[in-house]
């Protein structure tokens, strides 16, 4: 494993030629292990109810936004719209409300998603192993759960109330997910929360390394969303520059050659295009981050979780990929009936 000091040294590195060297190494490893394949996915937000108070998030319990969750009919409408654009991998998201979006509601969403998509992932509140197993058996292939920051003190400062305040329950979620048999787990940190990106990255790497050793059959991927300022929250994110983000991506690729790296539309088109060469393996396309955002008559009246920086359509993303000699991959998994190991 790479040392904390080495991570810090690389993140502190400002010399263009050294950064280029890092990028070349990451580029070569990516090409070797993934070729030119880039998987595509889209998020669908089905609820913005949340019972936690996270100071940096637009969905937090005390933020005055219009709360809504999709009915089955509305889910059909949103999902068929997304499927119509060609997307076959769906990421279903909610706020973290155990009451508004209980397991039964999530399973209902999964049943509907199965009619439209070949692979289904969830990004929802952490839960118990038995609940994850129910989701696996219902047809869920992947779960995304981000620790946000591994720095306990900082974690306590920004997660003020609700279940998400429980650091350890969240930290141990990937283990419960793996035990439940889920085949893909996405982990990550929210860049901009902790002052020291290096420490957070090191802790994430240690966590992933532990997961790999204990649950080698899982396909892992990492995400590095950058915090965006949100109106009315009075939360000042730490600045994480493009240079730092790129170095984080390169370092991850070098330390974990086979692990997937996701990049969402939080980042702008230019940065996303560039990052493809350095280790990104999965990107979202034409995303909406508000509940019902794909088919709403007046989408500007909805409250997004964060603002999209890359508005390109699925077709435009595909054209860009082909133009740059990447192979757009719509389906990287074909759902089989999931059955828990005895």
């Amino acid at each position, binding site marked *: 494993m790479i040392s904390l000091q080495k991570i810090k040294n690389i993140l502190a590195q400002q010399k263009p030629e050294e950064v280029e060297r890092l990028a070349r190494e990451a580029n070569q490893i990516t*090409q*070797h*292990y*993934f*070729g*030119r*394949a880039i998987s595509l996915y889209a998020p669908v937000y089905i609820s913005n109810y949340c019972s936690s108070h996270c100071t940096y998030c637009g969905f937090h319990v005390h933020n005055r936004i219009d709360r809504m969750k999709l009915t089955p009919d509305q889910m059909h409408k949103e999902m068929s719209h997304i499927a119509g654009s*060609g997307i*076959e991998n769906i990421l279903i998201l909610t706020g973290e409300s155990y009451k508004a979006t209980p397991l039964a509601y999530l399973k209902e969403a999964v049943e509907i998603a199965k009619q439209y998509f*070949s692979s289904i992932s969830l990004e929802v509140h952490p839960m118990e192993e038995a609940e994850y197993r129910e989701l696996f058996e219902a047809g869920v292939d992947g779960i995304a759960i981000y620790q946000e920051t591994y720095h306990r003190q900082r974690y306590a400062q920004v997660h003020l109330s609700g279940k998400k305040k429980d650091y350890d329950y969240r930290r141990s979620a990937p283990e419960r997910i793996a035990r439940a048999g889920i*085949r893909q787990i996405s982990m990550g940190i929210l860049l901009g929360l902790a002052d020291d990106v290096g420490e957070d990255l090191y802790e994430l790497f240690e966590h992933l390394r532990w997961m*790999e050793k204990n649950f*080698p*059959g*899982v*396909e*892992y991927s990492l995400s590095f969303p950058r915090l965006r300022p949100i109106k009315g929250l009075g939360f000042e994110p730490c600045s994480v520059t493009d240079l730092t983000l790129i170095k984080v991506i390169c370092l991850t690729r070098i330390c974990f050659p*086979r692990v997937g790296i996701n990049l969402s539309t939080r980042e702008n088109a230019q940065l996303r295009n560039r990052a493809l060469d350095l280790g990104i393996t999965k990107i979202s396309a034409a995303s909406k981050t508000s509940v019902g955002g794909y088919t709403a008559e007046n989408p500007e009246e909805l409250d997004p979780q964060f603002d999209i920086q890359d508005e390109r359509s699925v077709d435009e993303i595909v054209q860009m990929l*082909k133009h740059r*000699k*990447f*192979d*757009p*991959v*719509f*389906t*990287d*998994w*074909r759902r*089989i*009936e999931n*059955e828990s*190991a005895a």
Partner: protein
Amino acid sequence: MAIQTETQDSPLTIAGKTFHNRFLLGTGKFRSKTELTESITASGAQIVTVALRRIDLERHEENIIEHIPKGVTLLVNTSGARNAKEALRIARLAKASGCGNWIKIEVINDSKYLLPDNYGTIKATEMLVAEGFIVMPYMYPDLYVARELVKAGAATVMPLGSLIGSHQGLKAKEFIKILINEIDVPIVVDAGIGRPSQAAEAMEMGADAVLVNTAVAAAGNPAQIAQAFSLATAAGRLAYLSKLPAIKSHANSSSPLTGFLFEE
């Protein structure tokens, strides 16, 4: 195209079907579907592997099957299967999707090294053979496992040369030789072959065929290297049939130990 050789070689026979080209090509990681088609054509490969997870049944233009020339035998692999039951479900799905019943079993429960789980592979072979599939299992070269696979009805045994995608060549050479000596179904060396010379080496020592993917897909000119692999495979086969004299580590005078017996 691969050169035609004037030899008495019998064709490669798998499950009663005969093949004259002993180079098998994997279809993952190509930059474009066009480069894939060109590589199949240039190499003359008659069997290509495709991961079911990558077959885009819904999208005509992106569907990899549409880019495989007619007459080429499709070998669907069970990439993503972590145990025998998942391999069986993937195989059934492949058959139901019109991809035929030739299955390369991959049971892998390690996403870092991608080493095959031999135990799960034996179980999967038993289950798939029982359902009438033509089964070609990818395995770690272990004699006992190879015997069990044959007993379970495997049409070939496919030992890895080294870690998949590593280009390390025949790290497992000595163990593959044992399989070649002892196992009667065709031995197809799969994984780790990164150079045409390594493909030739596998064939020289008596493998029945080789399968290559990454080394072709990631090359600057995939079609050209695919052809080179195919030629090297044929050359290695020709050398094997020629009964090469063994390599000696020292010079060999004619009869230093017993020559005196015949001195006049």
